[in-house]
């Protein structure tokens, strides 16, 4: 392994830094440049220079050196930014990018372009600050020989490596003590080798938690750190002149604790006990803490990753979980005393795997703000179009939801918002007459509840009109009665083609929509609830699972087959007694549960499972609810509850009736996840098909006759 192995890391980092730099350059406010942003730009240039010097990318190093000096003048307010200067900086950034690409392709960068950009920068310096910029060191020397000139470059308090003591002694060699904290043996060898290239290693000693190397070198501390940072975290590294060794161990414990709090993963628990000799002093540590914070603010704290990559990781973690539970099953048969170590290891693995899974899942989560932020504009436009006064309030913008769901929620939610604005909130005059403020209020809120997210669209408008809904339903031929509960009446608006709007506007009212909203939401594994009070407003609540990738499931057994029920659909399970089962119209059966009669669906009948228990009172009835429909599902046995990784069946196969997806069980076999609402439809369709054909045609003609006269 040699230094070229780190080229790629450098290229990637440099690319990110350049992208960052560009972003800051574009964002910067010329009137009042933000000091933090100027610093960020400077730091980006500085970091690239450090890396370029280390790896011997001379042209890149020299260009960034000039650039960095200019930027330094900028951030110290000696050079006032103007649009054309920013343009020049952007051009320089592009040039750096070209140079980087050249090095990446193992070519020498364009010398003419390099000369040109140097001249441009020099000229800028002459004109604006009246001084030549220092050229970076000798052409032949590469990293090491150019380093001594570096300390002459002014240091800034925010600069990561700008420690106040004598480390930056401009010239000549000095002995530095480089302490490596918690660096594994493999990396340590590499680092020592690396140090050997920067100077003469005089002495090395220590253990894993703190390994100290004495180095006679002319390279500045900055540069050493820049080299090392490609291998280890900055917190793992402490460099100081070897002379002031005596006054170090004042507060080592304190310091190392701080180091831990900065970067918990970098420090092992051992650190606080053994790093007594860890060479660091308190003030420096504090300085670093400050810099770290500043860094997080100024530099990019996020990366863009394609969803495919994230999904791949999620899949792999899913596999890991499955493998882990497979192992778990095997190991659980072992003797707890003899194989205690293994069992402990397994439970640790289980915990780690779960944590990993949670962490990975959280990568996919985005804040609801992503969705809500598109409504202020829409509401404003619509309100002026409808000549209504509307105030939009959003709550719970930081509630997180799976990215794939946020994208799919936008359309239905937009529809609900438009509906509320158009039909819900009244005209200002009407509102005033009803004693309400002229300005209507539309609230969008999101909150977590268990494994679900509740998204609500609340308006303080007129509310739904029960009588009109019923009248409209009768008109469109739906079977309704006056005794229906409010809930049932509100559900009517989800019927296809149903609209109560008095006139069709171009905002809404054509009656296509609410059924689509409902279908979309159900497609995401959620449901819609409506609460409304006349004159006070309507609340539409969307309940969605947080993620589609993992499901809390209840595994059930029917015959020899295992199925998964989504736990969110399961209300209760019970052993039905014969007295509570009533036959109805031949082959239909209903189950009486606490004064409620529920239709019964036998899984074995709907899914043709052989060898299932057919005696009704031997089975177990699971009361389930899906799409507002409640029924009893007959199964042979309940196995247990478990989280399952949802696998799409449609990737390689097709939609299966009564089944929403599949998952992989602990033993590696596939189990199907049942779709409660679809299963009910399937069971009805099956019974329909089994009925003697003549009877059904008779029914049909009978119905037709009845309908004709009306």
């Amino acid at each position, binding site marked *: 392994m040699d230094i070229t192995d780190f080229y790629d890391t450098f290229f990637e980092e440099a690319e990110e830094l350049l992208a960052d730099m560009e972003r800051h350059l574009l964002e910067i406010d010329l009137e009042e440049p933000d000091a933090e942003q100027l610093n960020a730009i400077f730091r980006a240039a500085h970091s690239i220079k450090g890396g370029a010097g280390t790896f011997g990318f001379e042209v890149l190093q020299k260009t960034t050196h000039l650039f960095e000096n200019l930027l330094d003048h900028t951030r110290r307010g000696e050079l006032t930014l103007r649009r054309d200067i920013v343009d020049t900086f952007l051009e320089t950034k592009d040039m750096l990018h070209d140079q980087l690409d050249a090095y990446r392709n193992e070519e020498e960068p364009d010398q003419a372009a390099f000369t040109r950009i140097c001249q441009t920068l020099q000229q800028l310096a002459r004109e604006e600050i009246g001084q030549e910029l220092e050229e970076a060191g000798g052409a032949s020397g590469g990293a090491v020989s150019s380093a001594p000139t570096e300390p002459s470059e002014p240091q800034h308090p925010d600069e990561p490596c700008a420690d106040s003591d004598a480390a930056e002694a401009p010239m000549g060699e000095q002995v530095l003590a480089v302490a490596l904290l918690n660096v594994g043996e493999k990396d340590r060898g590499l680092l020592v080798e690396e140090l050997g290239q920067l100077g003469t290693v005089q002495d090395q000693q220590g253990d894993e938690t703190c390994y100290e190397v004495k180095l006679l070198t002319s390279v500045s501390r900055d540069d050493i750190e820049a080299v090392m940072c490609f291998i280890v975290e900055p917190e793992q590294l402490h460099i100081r002149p070897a002379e002031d060794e005596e006054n170090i161990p004042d507060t080592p414990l304190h310091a190392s604790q701080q180091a831990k709090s900065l970067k918990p993963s970098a420090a092992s628990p051992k650190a606080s006990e053994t790093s007594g000799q860890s060479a660091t002093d308190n003030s420096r540590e504090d300085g670093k803490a400050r810099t770290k914070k500043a860094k997080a603010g100024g530099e990019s704290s996020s990366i863009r990753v394609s969803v495919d990559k994230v999904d791949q990781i999620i899949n792999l973690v899913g596999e890991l979980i*499955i493998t882990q539970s497979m192992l778990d099953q095997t190991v659980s048969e072992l003797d707890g005393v003899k194989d205690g170590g293994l069992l402990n290891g397994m439970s640790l693995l289980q915990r780690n795997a779960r944590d990993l899974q949670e962490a990975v899942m959280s990568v996919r989560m985005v804040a609801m703000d992503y969705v809500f932020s598109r409504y202020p504009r829409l509401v404003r436009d619509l309100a002026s179009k409808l000549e209504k006064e509307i105030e939009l309030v959003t709550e719970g913008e930081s509630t997180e939801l799976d990215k794939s769901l946020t994208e799919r929620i936008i359309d239905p939610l937009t529809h609900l918002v438009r509906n509320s604005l158009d039909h819900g909130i009244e005209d200002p005059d009407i509102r005033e007459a009803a004693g309400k403020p002229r300005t209507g209020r539309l609230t969008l809120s999101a909150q977590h509840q268990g494994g679900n997210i509740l998204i609500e669209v609340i308006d303080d408008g007129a509310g739904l009109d029960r009588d009109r809904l019923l009248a409209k339903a009768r008109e469109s031929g739906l079977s309704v009665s006056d005794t229906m509960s409010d809930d049932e009446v509100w559900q009517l608006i989800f019927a296809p083609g149903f609209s109560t709007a008095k006139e069709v506007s171009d905002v809404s009212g054509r009656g296509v929509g609410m059924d689509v909203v409902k279908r979309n939401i159900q497609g995401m594994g959620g449901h819609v609830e409506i609460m409304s009070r006349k004159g006070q407003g309507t609340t539409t609540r969307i309940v969605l699972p947080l993620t589609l990738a993992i499901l809390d499931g209840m595994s059930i057994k029917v015959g020899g087959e295992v199925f998964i029920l989504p736990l969110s659909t399961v209300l209760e399970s019970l052993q039905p007694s014969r007295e509570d089962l009533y036959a109805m119209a031949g082959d239909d059966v209903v189950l009486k549960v606490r004064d409620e009669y529920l239709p019964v669906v036998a899984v074995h009948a709907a*899914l043709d499972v052989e060898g299932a228990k057919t005696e009704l009172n031997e089975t177990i009835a699971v009361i389930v609810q899906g799409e507002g429909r409640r029924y009893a599902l007959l199964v042979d046995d309940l196995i247990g509850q478990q989280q399952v990784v949802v696998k799409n069946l449609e990737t390689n196969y097709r939609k299966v009736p009564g089944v929403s997806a599949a998952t992989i069980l602990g033993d590696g076999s596939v189990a199907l996840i049942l779709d409660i609402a679809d299963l009910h439809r399937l069971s009805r369709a099956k019974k329909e098909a089994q009925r003697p054909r003549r009877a059904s045609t008779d029914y049909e003609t009978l119905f037709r006759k009845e309908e004709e006269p009306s």
Partner: protein
Amino acid sequence: MTRLSQHADYAASEAQNREFLVFSLGEEEYAIDILKVQEIRGYENVTRIANAPEFIKGVTNLRGIIVPIVDLRIKFHLDKVEYGGQTVVIVVNVADRVVGIVVDGVSDVMTLTPEQIKPAPEFGVTLSSDFLSGLGSLEDRMLVLVDIDKLLTSEEMALVERTSA
């Protein structure tokens, strides 16, 4: 010069040669383009799918991917359909999908020259000649060259949902 042109000829014919994986269904020998084959594995742990055609045996877990398993013997109306240690699943990649097909055994990989591939005659009630890319003749053997792409994506296999909506 002649050697050169010979060489070119050889390379050209080489390019037209195609490799096939030969498998047996009962007594009959079939072959599919080897490039479609992802892997070959045993028949085990298949989860039945309700209300699917009889020849779709179900789905199985292929390292975390849910893969449908089709039994070509049932599809081609073979008399004897048994599952044993010799029963093999050929996992193929077709139209961005992964599908496993159950066969009685895999015999070998054959290279066929264009001359050895004869057009398939018009026949077939159970196996339409649309799904054949030809017949391979090898001395005394005849290989039925199946166009596995067309077969598995066809309507009658009911593997792929038609985007009708």
